[in-house]
């Protein structure tokens, strides 16, 4: 083969008595650096492919719900962006109970940022006191807490407890305004999604408010 008869013999081509050629070092370093840049650049599309697709991003359309049929003291669950959203019709007694929780909850005035839009920064964390609208996902690690709308007794529950939401995963407890009790794993109150009432007050559109337009 022609390679076997190459005029340059690999072993003899470098004279061991010659001083090292510094330009070789430069070229090796340059080649490694450029190769490294190319390698990192190649990783970009692969890392990027993990981000939510356009389809997943577009799936966040607002949801309209009829709330006139929810009796007082009951709730419904609707799906918005793949998450459960609870709409609770609170009774007068339950609203009274919320006032008594202020000393027991970690963030009574919902001062921590990110979970309570400005329209819900009030005693009941809602637009209308009787309707609570929250995302039913625990702010700890994303389980969906179990609603207990009537007063219950049980191990690990505050006593007396006027009812609220108990996360089965790690035991976080929320009151009927979605506020987390002190010294529980969840750091934040339940998220209040953007929502708006229809003009006659019988329907709610989740995903739309003063800031987020449909």
């Amino acid at each position, binding site marked *: 083969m022609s390679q076997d008869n190459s005029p340059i013999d690999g072993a003899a081509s470098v004279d061991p008595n010659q001083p090292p050629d510094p330009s070789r070092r430069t070229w090796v370093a340059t080649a490694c650096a450029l190769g490294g840049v190319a390698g990192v650049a190649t990783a970009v599309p692969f890392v990027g492919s*993990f981000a939510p697709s356009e389809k997943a991003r577009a799936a966040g359309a607002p949801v309209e719900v009829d709330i006139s049929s929810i009796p007082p003291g009951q709730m419904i669950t609707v799906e918005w962006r793949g998450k459960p959203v609870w709409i609770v019709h609170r009774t007068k007694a339950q609203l009274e109970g919320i006032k008594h929780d202020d000393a027991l909850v970690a963030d009574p005035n919902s001062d921590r940022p990110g979970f309570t839009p400005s329209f819900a920064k009030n005693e009941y964390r809602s637009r209308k006191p009787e309707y609570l609208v929250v995302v039913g996902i625990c702010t700890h690690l994303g389980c969906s807490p179990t609603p207990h709308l009537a007063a219950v007794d049980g191990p690990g529950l505050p006593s007396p407890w006027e009812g609220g939401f108990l996360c089965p995963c790690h035991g976080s407890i929320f009151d009927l305004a979605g506020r987390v009790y002190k010294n529980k794993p969840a750091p934040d109150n339940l998220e209040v999604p953007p929502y708006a009432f229809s003009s006659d007050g019988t329907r709610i559109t989740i995903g739309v408010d003063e800031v987020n337009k449909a």
Partner: protein
Amino acid sequence: MAGEKTVETTGLLGWIDKRFPLTTLFKEHMSEYYAPKNFNFWYFFGSLALLVLVIQIVTGIFLVMNYKPDGNLAFGSVEFIMREVPWGWLIRYMHSTGASMFFVVVYLHMLRGLFYGSYRKPRELVWIFGMAIFLCLMGEAFMGYLLPWGQMSYWGAQVIVNLFSAIPFIGPELSLWIRGDYVVSDATLNRFFAFHVIAIPLILIGLVVAHIIALHEVGSNNPDGVEIKAGPKDANGHPVDGIPFHPYYSVHDIMGVAGFLIVFAAIVFFGPEMGGYFLEYNNFIPADSLKTPPHIAPVWYFTPFYSMLRAITADFTWVLAACSILGAIALFIKGNLKGAWRIIVPVILILVAIFMRTLDAKFWGVVAMGGSVVILFFLPWLDHSPVRSIRYRPTWHKFLYAIFIVVFLILGFLGTQPPNPTFNLMSQIGTLIYFGFFLLMPVWSRLGTFKPVPDRITFHAH
């Protein structure tokens, strides 16, 4: 042909040996790999882990032939495997039982290393490769558990992916990136499928090879923790206290395999769900993104670490911060850190104590859970005992090991239970003992009266 290798073998084997070092490899790793002759029961679990890996790969390949990684089809396709595919139930139960038995075998294998100091110099890399295998195994098990797309699959994945969201600043974006959607969804299922069936198994096999190569480079430890290479040698230069792995241990391990397969088959045929521990009852309900089951817990092999995650509450960070400050004072006064480290390490510990109270307890729960696994990597440098094996340690060391094992099991039990105040207090105490065992090891492992270590291994023929 010029440059042809001279080999001792003839015929087909000779033809191969001239082109591939088959006989050399066999000798190096089997027939002329000299292992200490005093291996006991605990030494079955390495080869058993390899056996379970093979079972998982083979059954996994056959499961993939009928499984559909699709949010709408996955649950149904698993039921299809169980009811319609001939022998599908057996293949799936072998795979699900294999997953749990993998952890049984690996935990016992690691405990063996802990007992006999098998991670000590020069076997640090054997241990580190092994720990990397353990991490891969946890990832493999977690992602595989999502695939049946039942309620436990779904909410388990939801919780674990959300662990990453506790990391300050980048957390929420990171967990979104991992899921590929705002909730666990079809996109998540598909990527976990890709990791479970190809990416992690490839890494796992590479690590297993590295684990064995590293082991055969330094030689196996043994229940006495005495180096056989330092002992007398025979005419061929082989240690007289060593015996060739093949045939002595290859045959010995076949007995271990037989015993293991009896247990394995008994579970597969008579109790594949193991009372809800191997296959959780709620996972027979299809995934519902709107409703978390009333009680969710990870599969048993994750529960000790899961307990530590749950143990960290806002009040408990006071205790942890206090421990951190005590550690800083102790290291500053009594520690033998050199130069600037004597200042830097205590300062870091005091900063940790401050962050304990300023960052969310949720973040520290995740740190505790991750740290409980990561700390094992450092075992070779935490253990300062003058002897390797538990046999020659002070008797009270054995009690410490016993406490550690009991605490680990209790944490495991607590992780399967619904949260309540008593259990939470128990898991907080357990978390302190778990971390204390390792973090104080540099201190306690040198204390006490050690028993004289024999020059050669002790061995009594049956």
